[in-house]
Structures are given as structure tokens and as C-alpha cells.
């Protein structure tokens, strides 16, 4: 029952398209990229064997167009499609359309996507499988009034969530009754804009909990294994910012128990390929099913680094009909991995997007570093797509070493021309709360970006730096007037440098 394919279309862009293309190339598969007009120079276009334009920059005219992507697959003779994450990755119509066109969809069955894609239905599946869920509505909310009634019953705070949701979109916390109406409207609009479906449901907001998820892999023969957990509690406005594996609060026994439950959820929907079961974990180590993501996660590399398993390679093997070569017994979590999501957002301006051209990229490298990114010198950060532009992932023998390694990697990583959240990550890596691993998913709500500079030593250094640059700019300008050659180097060093570059 092997489904041989030699050519894979990657229906995505950005770092995940590049990451999937890499595994395809390493498996000797031919690759096909698709790109919007904004992405002609993108790495995924340049790294693929073939590349096809599929329309205007807005995703719904390109990366979300099932017809255009299937048309390219036909023209290019692609026999399989990898959807990456986001875009069409959790769209059951797309998975079904692939199957109807004789193209292998590298992901779960359309029926599994449908079962888990509707978050309300997914809660029912979990409940039926005997998995604990967060208290909440059993069906969709038709009106604000319905939401009010439920909220009264469960008590505030509550969480409004998109039935078609994922990635924190269409989600709003409501702490008092008077916030409800506005939050309902905003969440529904956002859900409609993001998923084309504004249906909402609600859950009691559990506080002081962690977001811990379990990676699973299943083959078409009913074998399902889990690959340990990912700690994803470091979130800003429900967007994951830093993930790590293992979690500091998950011991071997809890890992086994959560893993078994995750496998049970997957089995309940006859799950094939890679997937992730998300849980909330409270202080007493009780865990509650949140949802299942029926795709590769952004944060999958940390699992790869601690288990040594290449998840994209396994996805492709499973999709081609192979039996899982992994058994639960030979999956061992070794060392510690951390991922920082680097985005073009300005932490000093309320995390607003920082658009523009990245003139130069200085990438961190060396032992234990992995950088999954799609940026390059000259890359234009635009507003069309997600502001996340790189994932910096480190592995080390222990969590403490991984934090130190991440710190030096963040210091090395420089993107010139735009602002990024790298300084924010640096501050987090220095936070005693993070270092101690004593946080829950509300950690960033109260995190203070400002560093303590009690001695004023750092401000003094900044003053020296700023004045030195001002002085240098002035000197270069005046020498320019004098006819001397301007340059990147400070003017007063030019002569010495010129001398130095002569052959001795």
C-alpha cells in the first residue's frame, strides 16, 4: 500500500516552506514552490526546483486559493502537497480536493481535520474519549445574550473562542459583564476575517495554568506514538513567543500520562500523520484538553532536537504509506531545546509591526544552534503576512546551558534595517522567573521589558555611544566637504586602515 511520489508541491511560504523544501531535497524529492507576487525573490522560490506564480499578495488571492494551487500541481505534475502550517493546512476541503485529484495530501485525513477543526466538535470527541476538558459551552454561541447566560453560569473570567480557531485569533478574554458585548463583536469579526467563519464558543478561563502540548505521529495502520511535550506558556496576547522541551514541570510519569491521553484523542479520530494535542496544566498537575492541531506546529523543531526525529521526514514517510519506524519505547527525550520566535515587531513601540527592508542579516551559528528562517539580505518585511520572520532554536545538554546558549545566539543575531523582538527575548532569557521555570501562561502579562539600570551605567554607555555617532557623522560630513573620501569607517581611522591594507 505504498504511495510512491517523486515530486512534492509545498503550498506555503516563509520559513516553513523553506524548512519543508529542505527535508524534501534531502530525501531526493523534486520540489515545486508557489508564490504570490510579493514573494518572487523569496527563499522558497529560489530553493525549489520549480516555482509558479499564483497571484496577488493577499493570501486569499494566492496561498489560500485551492484552485490555483491544484492547478499548479497538475501543471507541474506534483504527486503530493505539503501544506506547512497556517493557510490551507487545516482546511478539510483542501485535503479532500487533493484526494479527489489523486494528489497525496501530506497530513491527516480530511475527516480528522474536520473533526478537530471545529473546536466545539473536538471538545465533544475528547469528552467521549474520556479526556478531561476545560468547562465551557457544548455548542456554538448564537448571540451575545447566550454568551452572557453561559458566563453567568460558569462565572467570570471567561474566554471567547472561535470555533474554527487556532493561533490565538478570534479569541478574547472577558473579565466583567460590560466588556462582553464589545469582545464578542471583535472576536467574531476577527474569526470571520481569519477563518471565514465567525462562530464562537466559550470556556471558563483557567488561571495560573500552563500551556503544555504533546506531539504525536500516527500512520495509516493505526499505530500512534507521542514524542513528549512542548512547554508553550510564554505567550503574548495568546501568541506563543518562546517554547521549550521538556517542560520544567513535566516529569517522566506525567509525560507518560499526558502522552497516553494525547494518543487516545488521536485514535478517537483515526488520526494519521503529525499532530499536536494541546492541554492546560494546572498547579496540581491536572491537565485539560484544549484542542488538537492537525498539522505541523511552528514549534516542532524543539521536539526534533530533543528526540532526534525529523518530523517532516516522518510526515512524508507516513504520507507515502509507510509504517511508523518509531515505537514508543525508542523515543527518548535527551537534553533541552528552546525556541524563540523572532518577529518584525517593535517591543519599544507596543509590538507594532516594523516593516521595511532588512539590509543585512547577521545569523547566529556554531554549536547547538538551528535557525529556521526565510529572511536574507534585502528581504522586505511587508504587512501581507505574519510578522514572524525567524525561529531561533538551540539545544544543549541541560536547560541552564540551553538558556546561556540562547542568550549568546540572540546577541549574535542582528537584523539591520528594521526593529525586531530580539531585545525582548534577550530580556526574557535574563528573567529570574524564566530561568527558574516558575511561570504560567500569564507570565508575559506582567513582564517588564525595562531593564534595571540602577547605577545608570548603561545609560551612561548609551550616551557615549550616541554622542560618538553624532560626532562621527559630523566629522565625516565636514571631511566630505574638504574632499576627503567618506566611508563606513570613522574618519580618524581611515588613514591607519589604508596603511594597514597595504601589502607588508
Amino acid at each position, binding site marked *: 500500500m505504498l504511495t510512491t511520489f517523486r515530486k512534492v508541491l509545498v503550498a506555503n511560504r516563509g520559513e516553513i516552506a523553506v524548512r519543508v523544501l529542505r527535508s524534501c531535497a534531502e530525501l531526493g524529492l523534486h520540489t515545486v514552490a508557489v508564490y504570490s507576487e510579493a514573494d518572487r525573490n523569496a527563499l522558497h522560490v529560489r530553493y525549489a526546483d520549480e516555482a509558479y506564480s499564483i497571484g496577488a499578495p493577499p493570501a486569499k488571492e494566492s496561498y489560500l486559493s485551492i484552485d490555483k494551487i491544484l492547478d499548479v500541481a497538475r501543471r507541474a505534475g506534483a504527486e503530493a502537497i505539503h501544506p506547512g502550517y497556517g493557510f490551507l493546512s487545516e482546511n478539510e476541503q483542501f485535503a479532500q480536493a487533493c484526494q479527489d485529484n489523486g494528489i497525496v495530501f501530506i497530513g491527516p485525513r480530511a475527516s480528522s481535520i474536520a473533526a478537530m477543526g471545529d473546536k466545539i466538535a473536538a471538545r465533544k470527541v475528547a469528552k467521549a474519549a474520556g479526556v478531561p476538558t476545560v468547562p465551557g459551552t457544548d455548542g456554538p454561541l448564537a448571540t451575545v445574550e447566550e454568551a452572557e447566560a453561559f458566563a453567568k453560569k460558569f462565572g467570570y473570567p471567561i474566554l471567547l473562542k472561535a470555533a474554527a480557531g487556532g493561533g490565538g485569533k478570534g479569541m478574547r478574554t472577558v473579565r466583567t459583564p460590560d466588556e462582553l458585548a464589545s469582545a464578542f463583536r471583535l472576536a467574531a469579526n476577527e474569526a470571520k476575517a481569519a477563518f471565514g467563519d465567525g462562530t464562537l464558543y466559550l470556556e471558563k478561563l483557567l488561571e495560573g495554568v500552563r500551556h503544555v502540548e504533546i506531539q504525536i505521529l500516527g500512520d495509516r495502520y493505526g499505530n500512534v506514538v507521542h514524542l513528549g511535550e512542548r512547554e508553550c506558556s510564554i505567550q503574548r496576547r495568546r501568541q506563543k513567543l518562546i517554547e521549550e522541551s521538556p517542560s520544567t514541570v513535566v516529569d517522566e510519569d506525567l509525560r507518560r500520562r499526558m502522552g497516553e491521553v494525547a494518543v487516545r484523542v488521536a485514535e478517537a479520530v483515526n488520526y494519521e500523520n503529525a499532530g499536536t494535542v494541546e492541554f492546560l496544566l494546572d498547579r496540581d498537575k491536572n491537565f485539560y484538553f484544549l484542542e488538537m492541531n492537525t498539522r505541523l506546529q511552528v514549534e516542532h523543531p524543539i521536539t526534533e532536537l530533543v528526540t532526534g526525529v525529523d518530523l517532516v521526514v516522518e510526515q512524508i514517510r507516513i504520507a507515502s504509506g509507510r509504517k511508523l519506524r518509531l515505537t514508543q519505547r525508542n523515543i527518548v527525550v535527551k537534553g533541552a531545546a528552546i525556541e524563540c520566535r523572532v518577529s518584525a515587531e517593535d517591543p519599544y513601540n507596543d509590538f507594532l509591526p516594523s516593516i521595511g527592508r532588512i539590509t543585512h542579516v547577521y545569523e547566529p551559528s556554531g554549536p547547538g544552534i538551528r535557525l529556521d528562517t526565510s529572511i536574507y539580505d534585502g528581504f522586505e518585511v511587508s504587512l501581507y503576512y505574519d510578522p514572524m520572520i525567524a525561529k531561533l532554536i538551540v539545544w544543549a545538554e541541560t536547560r541552564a546551558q540551553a538558556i546561556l546558549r540562547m542568550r549568546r545566539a540572540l546577541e549574535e543575531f542582528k537584523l539591520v534595517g528594521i526593529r525586531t523582538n530580539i531585545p525582548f527575548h534577550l530580556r526574557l532569557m535574563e528573567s529570574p522567573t524564566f530561568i527558574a521555570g516558575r511561570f504560567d501562561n500569564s507570565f508575559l502579562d506582567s513582564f517588564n521589558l525595562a531593564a534595571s539600570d540602577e547605577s545608570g551605567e548603561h545609560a551612561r554607555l*548609551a550616551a557615549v555611544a550616541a554622542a560618538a555617532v553624532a560626532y562621527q557623522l559630523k566629522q565625516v560630513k565636514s571631511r566630505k566637504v574638504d574632499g576627503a573620501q567618506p566611508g563606513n569607517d570613522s574618519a580618524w581611522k581611515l588613514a591607519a586602515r589604508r596603511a594597514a591594507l597595504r601589502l607588508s
Partner: protein
Amino acid sequence: MKYYVEVDDRTFELDFQEEDELLYVHLGESRLTLDLRQISQPSLYSLLVDNRSYEIFVEARGDEFNVLIGGEMFQLKVQDEWTRRLANIQRKSGVETGELAVVAPMPGAVVAIEVSPGDEVKRGQGLVILSAMKMENEIKSPRVGRVKSVDVSAGQTVEQGRTLVVLE
């Protein structure tokens, strides 16, 4: 050449001198040896201060400087002695108008207008909803006031810095 740098409510006075192809700066009691190199345009520098090595981002716009060192950002005002004198003169002729333009903090599309001219608004009250990168963001009033004018309409695309609402 003397420079005055304001940062975090402090003002530093720095005096630069060149000697034997090296750059020195006097700051308070200390005399520091500097070696500053621009690593790449527009903002990355390597700075040695008495042999201590720093990689810093410096953004300059007029006399407003932003300096990023590791995980710390500083906003500074840098003036040389001449500019400072000039600024002191100009300050005397400045006028406070009392009007405040609320501008778009990022490019995006206007989803909804939540106020009308003449409305009294509280600090933190929603004025306009902007959509960018698939997220909706409510632009809130930075202070108590009255809406003088609404300068955009729903559905309109706006650039960063565009005035949305004027308060008085």
C-alpha cells in the same frame, strides 16, 4: 567638541578630543578611549570603550537618538554645543496649542469609527478600530478631551502617521 546628551532625566556633558589618531572623550571625571566603527548601514556599530567591546544599534533622526545595547533600548537627545544654543533660543518662541492629533501607529485598514465630532472621550476610550496583519486593534484615546474632527472613514486604508482623529 562638546556634546550634551539627555537620557532618562539625566544630562551628560561629553567632550571629544582627537590625539594621535585615537578618539578620547571626557565625561565627568573620566577620560575614555573610543574606537567606533560602523559595521553596516544604517544602524549597526561596533564600539570599543577602554577596550570593552559592544555591538550596538544607533538610530539617529535629527537630535533624537535611539541606542539599543543588548536587551536595553535608550532614547536620547544629542546636541552639540552650537545646536543646543540654537534650540534654547527657539524654545522661547514655541506655543502650546492644546490640540492633539491621534495618528495611525501602523499602516492598516479602518474597520470602524467609534466616535463622532463633539463626543467627550475618556482616557483609554476606543476611537477607531484598525486592522493590520489579520489582527484588529482598537486605537484608544491618550487623554480626556473632546473630538474635534474624525479624519478617516471605515474601509479606508491608512498609512502610518496618518491623522485619524483630532482631540481638543
